[in-house]
């Protein structure tokens, strides 16, 4: 099943990606081919089959609510593209 250009643009918007026209064309084609292939999954009868989100049985890992090991503010800010007064600076939101 082909994915339309509109769908690619919609999904790109959700994923916060800018895609230019040439790329929309190319991506729709490639992704359409992949989705066609993935459609084979429909052939399998999965009635009553539980989904697996983790292959190994895991139980919740808890710990006591104690402070243990943390980044110093300078370390946390070291890779910041823009910072000021111990805070990350971003473009105006409101």
């Amino acid at each position, binding site marked *: 099943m082909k*994915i339309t250009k509109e*769908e*690619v643009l919609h*999904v*790109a918007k*959700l*994923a*916060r*990606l*800018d*895609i230019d026209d040439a*790329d929309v064309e190319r*991506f729709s084609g*490639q*992704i359409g*081919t*992949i*989705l066609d*292939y*993935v*459609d*084979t*999954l*429909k052939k*399998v009868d*999965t009635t009553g*089959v*539980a*989904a*697996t*989100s*983790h*292959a*190994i049985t*895991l139980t*919740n*890992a808890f*710990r006591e609510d104690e402070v243990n090991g943390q*980044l110093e503010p300078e*370390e*946390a800010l*070291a*890779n*910041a*593209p*823009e910072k000021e007064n111990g805070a*990350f600076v*971003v*473009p*105006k*939101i409101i």
Partner: protein
Amino acid sequence: MKLHELTIEQAGRLLKKKEISSAELTRAVLERIEAVDGKVSAYLTVDDEGALAQAEAADQRLAAGDAGPLTGIPLGIKDLMCTRGLRTTCASRILENYVPPYDATVIARLKEAGAVIVGKLNMDEFAMGSTTEHSGFQVTRNPWNLDRIPGGSSGGSAAAVAADMCLGALGSDTGGSIRQPASHCGVVGIKPTYGRVSRFGLVAFASSLDQIGPLGKSVADCAIMLDAIAGHDPKDSTSVPEPVPVFADIETDGLTGVTIGIPNEYTAAQGLDPQVGSAVEQAVKIIESLGARCVEVSLPHTDYAVAAYYVIAPSEASSNLARYDGVKYGFRDKQPADLLQMYRRTRSRGFGPEVQRRIILGTYALSAGYYDAYYGKASQIRTLIKNDFASAFDACDAILSPVAPTPAYGIGETIDDPLTMYLSDIFTLSANLAGIPGLSVPCGFSEEGMPIGLQIMGRHFNETMLFKIGRQLEAQIAINDRKPNLE
């Protein structure tokens, strides 16, 4: 004896006897990198100064008698694991200058063991790819033929080990990314059981599939490295408190009592190169000659594994990569008009095409109206695949298969054809979906001199069986001394 050609086992003995020092060994490796990495392009970052300082510290530990099997051993690390103070890029422009403020748990454990970290190795960007061509920076070449792919996504790791540019390396495997490059480069690689090795500090691609594992020149070397990094980590809530045996204690007294299974769906697989098929058949015969019994098993949902994986992995990736937004670290587009534009431009300029493709695929599969049909369905099929293996392991102790359908193909062949690249993962990705361990061990060469690997898969937490079979096969085939010619 060229020091860089040593295995970890050999180097360990010489270091212990004080016949060589870690400083000499590390210098030899650094010189080797200078000599040949211009051709191979395995390394993204080489830390000469740091490595020599670590080597000096290791030499002191060795002198004091406080050394283990990895003390003083130069290793390379796939650039997907955080190394404190050492640039970590995930082979992406979006992290081109990122310097982590912390060590991944596996790195901390290697440092505790006294290993010497030489540098960071090239990979497909964010581990998305099977050729290492999707790196944001450079293409790594297969040391056995520089026009061929080294495999991916841990292509830099496999190539570096094959070219003796480190004595061992760490890679990561989400759909085959340790095993397939190991096979293509003629080295050993193992993806441990999911949860066996901590993912803390491993930059996440698909959280329910990712595992870190070693690549080395021999099965024993991989076992030594796995010993150092395996085990429960409170910082990774998906790591499992399963006791860790000493993997380096490998049984080598034959395979009587071991039953191996050959999945009939794999031997009949489309696109399987006859040379790969016959190399695998030869390996099976050798394993039988060591006393193992061979039975046919069935993995009926094999045909759906690639499709299920290429829904689940991109879906999880689309969520994991949402954090790259230019706010706290990494690349940020200059002078965006507003926050939304900052996000969009940063991500579009920072991520390469394969990453963007998978984010779109994943976002689509998880979006309203499609979630059940794609992600929900794929997750159910994942259960069926996991059950296939559970049934097969009722009849056998280990499953054997090819690693890749063909030997390494030419650079550029699948760069515009992602689906063909995806289909080449057919033998490896089921192990990630089911969480079981898989070992790739060299079992032969093609007529063109390209390496071919055998895959050995086992029950959850039974890496011991994989090492037992792999080590004894390796001893019989005896091709570890064959080296690529890089002069």
